[in-house]
């Protein structure tokens, strides 16, 4: 399930409700991405996430579909916030459920790696030195590319 929201969410409550009542789930993996209070030496006061409504939901659904194609997932949840957030607030939650741990853990890593390079979100940091758009990282591209190699190899 995909949820793109402008409202705050509680990762603990979401994870508790995720796959609740299912007795065939043997393992749940989750990742929570939060706003950090600094980037190197620069203090971050807040972060604003902009996104492309419509395309965001479409790309996230494609990524979920790809994860379900590759791993035997019993359930899958992606929540991503947009709008202004302060340090400590959650930005994104990925949770996966499977019969066994390997599928849940791998699919969770895959989902956040692909989401970071394929879902149309942009981060604007408010810092002590003014506002600035976060630049894409080569390390994120490399993390996503690992899964491309596995797909073709």
């Amino acid at each position, binding site marked *: 399930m995909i949820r793109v929201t402008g409202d705050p969410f509680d990762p603990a409550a979401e994870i508790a409700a995720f796959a609740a009542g299912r007795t065939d789930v043997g393992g749940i993996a989750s990742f929570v*991405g939060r706003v950090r209070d600094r980037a190197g030496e620069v203090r971050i006061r807040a972060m604003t996430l902009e996104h*492309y409504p419509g395309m965001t939901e479409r790309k996230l659904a494609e990524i979920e579909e790809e994860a379900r194609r590759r791993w035997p997932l019993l359930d899958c949840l992606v929540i991503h916030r947009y709008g202004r957030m302060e340090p400590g607030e959650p*930005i*994104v939650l990925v949770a996966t459920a499977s019969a066994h741990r390997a599928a849940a853990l791998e699919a969770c890593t895959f989902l956040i790696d692909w*989401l970071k390079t394929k879902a*149309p979100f*942009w981060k604007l940091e408010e810092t002590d030195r003014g506002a600035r758009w976060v*630049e*894409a990282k080569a390390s994120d591209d490399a993390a996503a590319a690992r899964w491309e190699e596995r797909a073709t190899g």
Partner: protein
Amino acid sequence: MKIRYFAWLRQRTGLAEEELEPPAEVHTVADLKRWLADRHPRFAETLAAPGVVRCAVDQEYAEDDTPVGGAREVAFFPPVTGG
């Protein structure tokens, strides 16, 4: 055709979206970039720089040679930084 801009492209052009009818000789994303650069001199250089501006045609990622004929919506934006 609706043209949309996101992140710093939106700030630099001063608009989030505009409704435009490109002339018949605009066949591809590259053609559209050249045509838009004439309309928005402030980011002509950015649009022309390879690898800086990403594009989506009807909400699918596109390349310079992707056709735009018949497209309802074309978006320009920097590399994504979500998650």
